[in-house]
């Protein structure tokens, strides 16, 4: 009994002496939805980083035999009712129907392909550097198309995994750029006030007066069509950042305006602290958590922006693979009618955005000292 009391007292003590970041972390862990969303995001980002290893097929390989093949179902029981511990898929049996002008695919029950982990498959270069050919999962013979195939017989699942590299990273890179610009400008505006503040505020007002999507459309046409994929990528990132920095600048400015009147700022100045020290050692840490939450909530805007632009044909273009580019393929109703699995990248877009929203909400709740959990 006494031990329990001591243990509790220790826990209470830990809580009382915990640093600000520890408190935020503990509160965040309690937020189950945010934790779940964070795990989902970690899985997505790991898949994007190790795309070559995780994707079962090479995303760029043409497979003329398997155009618009439907997704394969994973079975555990075969035709005779035997249970296989190792899941398997059936091969395809295809027939060209000239009346409807397309190929019909059926399961060919005579071809059984078990799914293995860590199989040798299409060769790749991890990160473009390390050659290898081991994939996380796949079949030893035959093809594995868990999400079906697209127009040229390319595996949809693999394309989604590779596409995540661009779609997910644009959010992070874009946020990095906008936050640097936003914090610096917003900080200057809020801390020094006066004419600088008025000037910056007018500029921000002008920028947000121009409707975002037309602005992005017009700017992305400025990217020359002969630019390489990498350059287009950075061009798009900069374009997207041009509007999102304003939100951050306003938040930072508001905080600076409020906090520079605080007593501790005056005390620091009286003690002889220079402006830089006041800004970085005293004011900035007090709302860093708020900034992080705001940043996390701005990432979905960038993801939607890139996806929309690519969908309209103005952002990333083939042969680059991003979720927006994949969805561009899905634009025709005809294709949706008989190959609806083409829309699957959309599911991943939605899940990513939801996950970022939940994590951002969780961060905001966790860094708010007045909310009671």
């Amino acid at each position, binding site marked *: 009994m006494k031990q329990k009391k001591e243990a509790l007292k220790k826990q209470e003590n830990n809580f009382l002496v915990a640093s600000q970041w520890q408190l935020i972390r503990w509160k965040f862990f309690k937020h189950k939805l945010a934790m779940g969303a964070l795990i989902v995001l970690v899985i997505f980002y790991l898949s994007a980083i190790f795309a070559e290893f995780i994707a079962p097929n090479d995303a760029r390989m043409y497979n003329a035999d398997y155009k618009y093949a439907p997704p394969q179902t994973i079975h555990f029981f075969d035709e005779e009712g035997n249970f296989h511990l190792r899941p398997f898929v059936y091969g395809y049996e295809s027939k060209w129907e000239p009346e409807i002008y397309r190929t019909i695919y059926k399961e060919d029950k005579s071809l059984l392909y078990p799914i293995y982990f860590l199989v040798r498959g299409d060769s790749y270069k991890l990160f473009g550097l390390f050659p290898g050919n081991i994939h996380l999962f796949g079949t030893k013979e035959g093809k594995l198309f868990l999400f079906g195939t697209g127009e040229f017989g390319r595996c949809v699942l693999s394309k989604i995994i590779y596409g995540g590299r661009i779609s997910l990273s644009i959010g992070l890179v874009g946020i990095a750029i906008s936050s640097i610009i936003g914090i610096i400008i917003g900080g200057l505006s809020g801390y020094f006030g006066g004419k600088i503040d008025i000037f910056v505020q*007018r*500029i921000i*007002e*002008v920028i*947000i*007066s*121009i*409707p*975002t*999507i*037309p*602005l992005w*459309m*017009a*700017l992305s*046409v*400025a*990217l*020359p069509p002969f630019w390489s994929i990498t350059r287009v990528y950075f061009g798009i990132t900069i374009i997207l950042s041009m509007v999102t920095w304003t939100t951050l600048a306003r938040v930072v400015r508001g905080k600076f305006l409020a906090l520079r009147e605080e007593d501790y700022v005056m005390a620091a100045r009286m003690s002889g602290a220079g402006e830089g020290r006041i800004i970085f050692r005293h004011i900035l840490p007090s709302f860093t958590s708020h900034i992080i939450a705001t940043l996390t909530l701005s990432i*979905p805007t960038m993801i*939607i922006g890139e*996806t*929309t632009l690519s*969908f*309209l044909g103005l952002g990333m273009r083939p042969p680059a693979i991003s979720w927006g580019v994949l*969805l561009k393929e*899905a*634009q025709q*109703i005809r294709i*949706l*009618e008989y190959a*609806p699995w083409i*829309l699957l990248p*959309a599911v991943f*877009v*939605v899940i990513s*955005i*939801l996950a970022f*929203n939940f994590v951002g909400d969780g961060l905001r709740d966790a860094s708010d000292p007045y909310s009671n959990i």
Partner: protein
Amino acid sequence: MKGFLLRRILLLIPTLFIITVISFMIIQLPPGDFFSGYVGRLSARGEYIEPETVEALREQYGLDQPMIVQYFKWMGNILRGDFGRSIQWNKPVIELLAARLPWTLMISFGALIFVYILSVPIGILSAVRQYSIMDYIFTLIGFIGLAVPNFLFALMLLWGYYKITGNVAVGLFSPEYALAPWSFARAIDLIKHLWMPIIIAGTGGAAALIRVMRANLLDELQKPYVVVARSKGLSERKLLFKYPFRVAFNPVISTIGWTLPFLVGGELVVSLVLGIPTIAPLFLKAVMTEDMLLASAVVLILSVFTVIGTLLSDLLLAWLDPRIREAV
């Protein structure tokens, strides 16, 4: 109040000026001009055009002059009400815009009304019945609405509609009414086609608005005066609408101007997916071919609408909330 109004309008002028500069510059950003793109397109088709003809055309449209000169010429014309001629369509810009602006406005305003009519009651319901099943369901729908990009929603709705009715819901009119003169039946047909873009353009905004409305009302309902009113015997409904709702609704309605740019963007994407002849497809083509006058005119007009919307919004807020009038 008058001082506030005056100050806001004065601030408008430099803002508008900078917007015109930005609108102009954006369109000039892509390398080359309309004719370089035109020559490129022609040669892709295997046709050839004399360089002298291109130069003559350039001169005719004033594209050979330095940027600054072009800008001032453009501004001068606009202030006189002349938006110039679209090179691509060979028609006055105003004509092109006037043909399509009504649809854009109809969809945008329709979406605006839809958003408010939908979100406010749901927000109230969610707040009053907090943590009930309805609240969770609506919060979930709200989140999903926030997460699904507009064009995606449009695609899914198109597909769903096709699955259910077997019709492809594109365009504004069914084929038989497309060119017919206006009649009651045509109006009905229009409404039958309009509901989809309006709903799609509005959902994103609706999701956000529901959350704001709910949060505001929740804050109000926790205040002591609500408890007092309840203890004095005021019925729940009267209680709700006499005080907390009005206070909570205030910021919601006064930011109505801010939703305008958002709706315009949403409407743009929706029109492109659903093939509706609004400003959107016109703008896309203009931007891609660098049809300068048309494209910058669209950006300018949209931005001006936004600025006006913001101004109205601020005025509304200042009228309703005296504290705003002191600050600027």
